[in-house]
């Protein structure tokens, strides 16, 4: 029961159980324990990992070409409603394999979720940290911008912009990314204000550290846990907005497979072929739920009050 750890001087020594009892687990071990003990985080993470793998390896997994139409085989039911294993989830209104479109659709949803969260994260964090750290006029300007942004209904603005520019994956991702930075800014501003008042920041300033250095090495690591949570929330938000826009015909353009678009395309037949809407709807629901579970979990395991 001995293990090799590195002491602060760099020399390796054998740690005996008695010492372990006195010192307790390392922070890494504690984190691991919290992660493994958090069901929501594990389930959410597993689902996201699964969907991410599905998206990445779509060409290998998908049984058919998601674009290959066969008008003679339209709207075949999924296998559990009496369909065949040739198309396990049936076919859509143009005879395209539903499962393949669902698998490729994961790419669109995850791509939009990640890229939009990164764009809005960069914008929002920059603004929030600047406002929180510098205060004064910078803070006033950023607060004003946040208020302006909060006064705009996201879906309506996105609808209008996409209607003017025409829908495409790039346009939708960019628009959504440019619209969702408000929560980043609000949370980062508040966290930065708390952290900048801490002694270690004052100490860094006292030893003459430059502002960028303080921001990057003192502030950022200490607000990162909040950032992670907001990232997950906004990812889910962006995915839902994409689905909504595509449903309204203003998002990703056909024939690109997107879950929102699939719901929209199945809508007219909802009364007689409800699975056309239910399947993509259920997957969308699962992904968003998983992301939220993971976000909640990450907050729980990284929050300072849970560290002890």
């Amino acid at each position, binding site marked *: 029961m001995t293990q090799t750890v590195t002491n602060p001087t760099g020399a390796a020594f054998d740690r005996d159980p008695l010492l372990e009892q006195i010192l307790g687990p390392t922070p890494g071990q504690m984190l691991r324990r919290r992660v493994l003990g958090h069901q929501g985080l594990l389930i959410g993470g597993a689902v996201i990992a699964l969907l991410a793998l599905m998206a990445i390896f779509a060409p290998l997994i998908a049984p058919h070409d998601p674009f290959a139409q066969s008008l003679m085989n339209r709207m075949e039911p999924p296998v559990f409603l009496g369909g065949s294993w040739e198309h396990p989830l049936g076919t859509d209104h*143009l005879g395209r394999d539903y499962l393949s479109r669902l698998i490729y659709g994961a790419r669109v949803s995850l791509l939009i979720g990640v890229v939009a969260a990164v764009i809005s994260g960069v914008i929002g964090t920059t603004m929030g940290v600047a406002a929180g750290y510098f205060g004064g006029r910078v803070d006033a300007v950023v607060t004003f911008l946040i208020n302006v942004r909060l006064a705009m209904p996201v879906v309506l603005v996105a609808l209008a912009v996409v*209607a003017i520019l025409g829908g495409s994956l790039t346009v939708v991702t960019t628009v959504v990314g440019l619209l969702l930075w408000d929560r980043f800014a609000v949370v980062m501003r508040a966290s930065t204000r708390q952290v900048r008042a801490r002694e270690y920041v004052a100490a860094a300033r006292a030893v003459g550290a430059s502002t960028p250095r303080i921001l990057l090495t003192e502030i950022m690591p200490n607000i990162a846990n909040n950032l992670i949570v907001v990232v997950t929330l906004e990812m889910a938000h962006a995915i839902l907005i994409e689905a909504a826009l595509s449903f309204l015909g203003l998002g990703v*353009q056909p024939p690109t497979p997107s879950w929102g678009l699939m719901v929209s395309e199945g809508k007219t037949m909802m009364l007689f072929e409800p699975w056309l809407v239910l399947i993509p709807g259920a997957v969308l629901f699962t992904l968003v739920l998983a992301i939220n579970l993971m976000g909640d979990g990450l907050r729980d395991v990284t929050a300072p009050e849970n560290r002890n």
Partner: protein
Amino acid sequence: MKRLRNFAQALAATCLALSVAPAFADKANDTLKVAFTGEINNVDSYFNTTRGGVVLQRAIWDGLVHRDTATGEYVGNLATSWEWIDDTTLEFKLREGVVFHDGSPFTADDVVGTVEFIANPDSGVVTQRFVSWLAGAEKIDDLTVRLNLAEVFPSALEYLSGPISIYPSDYYAEVGPDGMGLKPIGTGPYRVESVKPGESYLLKKNEDYFDGPKGSPDIGTIDIRTIPDVNTQIAELFTGNINVAWRLPSDLAQKLDGTPGVMVTSASSIRVGFLMMDSAGRTGDTPLTDVRVRQAINHAINRQEMVDSLLKGGSKVVNTPCFPEQFGCVQEYVEYQYDPEKAKALLAEAGYDDGLSIEIYAFSNQDYVEAVAGYLSQVGITLDIKMLKFPAVLDKMMNDAAPMVFMSSGSWSLNDVSAIISEFFKHGAVDFARDDEILEWLDVADTAVDPEVRKEYYGKAIMKITEQAYWAPMFSYNTFYAFTDDVDYTPTNDEILHFVNMKWK
């Protein structure tokens, strides 16, 4: 326990109330309930651009002439006879004893008033094509009137039997288009009881309707409601809350067919779908200026399969830039059979063996557009689909920004090719071909009085349009109707619900 019993009683009472309360649409109270999908912008037919508005127009007003939908013959309606005085003057004898819904008599003054109003461009009639051929009208006596044409216009009778209806001139002068839209008054088989714009329209049988060619109305009340969602319409149809749903998607109609209590019928329609291609190079350097690329696109699309699987019913493959039964739609053309190999060969010949990508704009029929994209991808053409709202697509077309458009035209239910070919090939804003020769021929055809000359020149135009593959004509549409089984009606091919011909079984 007592509370539970009270609850049970209340529940039972509610169920009972619900089971008897709604006034179901049925024969018993002589009320036919109809669902319209879209809102009507103005019930005044000169300021309406919607199909629902056309339906109301035919119910509320009459034209001077009526075209029999079965035989295609023109018969007198508000007029009893007519005569061409010269190429641009048409004299009508009017029917005696006709009264408007408000009780005022119909006279030559009403015809003169209406025609003078619509012929004046300042009046702002939305579809100028309906009226721009009219210069004015003069009264000869109370029952005789002359129409003066702005140009030689051989299809005058067709337009007079369709979009041009006669309004009570004094009332119209007083209330204007907005007033007319809210409280319409005409001579038609149904009078308007109430209009709630965008929501509902209540019509009552005109008991004093004259014995005209439209027939006499049978059903007492027509209650029209706007229900935008087609699934809701179907649910309402099942529960008996509406009797008529129309312009249903083909898949839904097919599923509905065979449902007890519901009857599904379809009628082929004059509407034709087509791909417009920028052969004139208005959008700049596009592969579509090469005739071989356009021909390849024509060869690559399996229109028969689309008709069989997507449109169904009475739809047909169309090879001409017009509906085959329209006047002047001469069936001599260059035909493009479905032949992907030939399409690939043509593309290779044009230097596109590595494939090419084209933007396509459309505002409706997304499934058709996607199907076309699916076929074209088989021969190496990638379509970049842009689904936009109609005004946005029109804007792209008019500003030379749309290399390819999926479009359909119902020729405004006019049985004359001038309503489609001349609309799209006379160098107007939506002319993608800009062919001078075709323009010349169409000028002759549009203004010639002799029907044979018209046919000859439209025929020339059709031959060249197909030879050059300026369009890819696709198919004629089909309108699906669903009725509760107590309604007796045979749909016509003009995409119009004729309430006057509906009866209870």
